[in-house]
């Protein structure tokens, strides 16, 4: 595997067709997000869930294909996931705090 002559096919060159497919998928998801925002009636929670799910799907497509993580080494994969995992920890701790404060009313906390 470790042929350092510079001519081995160690780097996966993603074909243009794959990029175009991902791009088309991203545009479809964008139209879906805007469409979902105009759903008749009030579905605040549902709308938020749909919008965030679509955004996460788009981000995953960009990370896996445009940023080549799908074709990268395991260390790259680990590094990329670590970033989002730490982000998740920050969100869970922060939002967990703010959204439960009113459970036990305390003077001075709004």
């Amino acid at each position: 595997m470790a042929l350092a002559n510079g001519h081995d096919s160690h780097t996966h060159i993603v074909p243009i067709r794959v990029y175009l497919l991902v791009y088309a998928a991203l545009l479809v998801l964008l139209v879906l997000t805007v469409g979902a925002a105009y759903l008749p009636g009030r579905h605040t929670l549902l709308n938020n869930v749909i919008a965030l799910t679509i955004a996460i799907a788009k981000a995953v497509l960009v990370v896996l294909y445009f940023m080549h993580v799908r074709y990268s080494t395991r260390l790259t994969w680990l590094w990329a996931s670590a970033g989002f995992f730490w982000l998740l920890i920050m969100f869970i701790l922060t939002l967990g705090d703010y959204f439960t404060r009113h459970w036990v009313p305390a003077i001075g906390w709004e």
Partner: protein
Amino acid sequence: MVQEQAPQNVSLQFEDVHQQNESYIVGMWTFLVTEIMFFGAVFATYLVYRVANHTAFWEAHLRLDIPLGFINTCVLLTSSLTMALTVHYAQRQMPKQQLLWLSVTMALAMAFLVVKGFEYHHKYVEGLIPGPNFRFEPAEYFRPAQLFFSLYFAMTGLHALHVLIGVLVMAVMAVLIAIRHSSVQDFIPVELVGLYWHFVDIVWIFLFPLLYLIPR
């Protein structure tokens, strides 16, 4: 998939070309992780205030221009595609195509900034810049609406700053590619700029629905 790939030189400190490539890419991801956390803190702030002021944020977000935001999302997604094509041609060592698609990416990035500039100008004319000249009706939502626009300008402003930095870095890359500089013989520098650019795109992918498409 068996396309001719550009040869790479291995620097002395690396065992082989795999280790070298992995080091560069993991290094770039390390920077991106700090960027994820940086933007993540801003997003968390926004979420906390949005949940606390839902109706006011909904009223305030009606003043944003969804068609312009939609166009800008398309522009940025397209620029990600053209950036991916730039990297593709860098890997195949085709400098002409590389330069072409890098220029298209820069043009799209600048188009994004121009549209953003029009949006900001429009907000200025409407008196929606937070500060002494901020005006908002109904008056009961004045304070939370000002909070919404503070967050709007902070988030989109930070993002626009990243776009601007991206344009500058791409301009430097374009010059290096045009003069066939030895540092861009290897595709890795272009790949790293690409990683940065796709990250900027991901930030906007979340900004657009969160700011422009708040459900009632």
